């Protein structure tokens, strides 16, 4: 059984940003990058959830 992930769950949610050259920009970069990691993790969780539920649909007919 082949379950394909929908395109809506195959988008890059964010991009990494640099540290800049001041403590303030470093802190802001850290916040943006860690939240980006969180968004990617969230995306992976949703992809896993879709795979699980789609397999359920095709196995049992929903």
């Amino acid at each position: 059984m082949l379950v394909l992930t929908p395109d809506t769950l195959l988008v890059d949610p964010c991009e990494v940003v640099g540290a800049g050259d001041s403590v303030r920009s470093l802190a802001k970069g850290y916040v943006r990058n860690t939240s980006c990691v969180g968004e990617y993790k969230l995306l992976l969780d949703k992809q896993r959830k879709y795979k699980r539920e789609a397999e359920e649909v095709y196995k049992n007919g929903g």
Partner: protein
Amino acid sequence: MLTSITMRPLIITLLFSISLNCLFGYLSYSFYSDKAVAEQALETCKGTNQTLSNSLDKQEKACKVGDGIASEFKRQEQALESQSEAVLQSIDTLPKQQIEKQSLNKTDRSQSETVINETYRNAPTEIDIDSKLPASLVGMLKEHCSRVKGSACTNP
């Protein structure tokens, strides 16, 4: 003689009738087998149609599941972004901090000159949140960012 004359048409009619019966029998058998083949093909088509219909139903259900999960992801992603925006705004409002040099009062003079100079030299004169990072550190962080992203990094 008379019977042979009257019998001939009867025999011919009989033979004609028999041949007609044979023809209709053959045609009936032929149509019957064609009908059986057509019925078999129809049953196969019905089965295929049912399978395709079930497959389409499952595809539609899977699509709905995908749409639901995508909306859920968008909602939670926006919540994450709002939280990080709030933190970023808090960082923007942080003031620069300054710690004045420790003033040397007369009681400190009781310590040796070496200790006083050491304390004075090591005391932080200023903590500025907008102060520049060391160049070596900036280079390291930029290199790390390029390694992760694979292209030029942008400043926040």
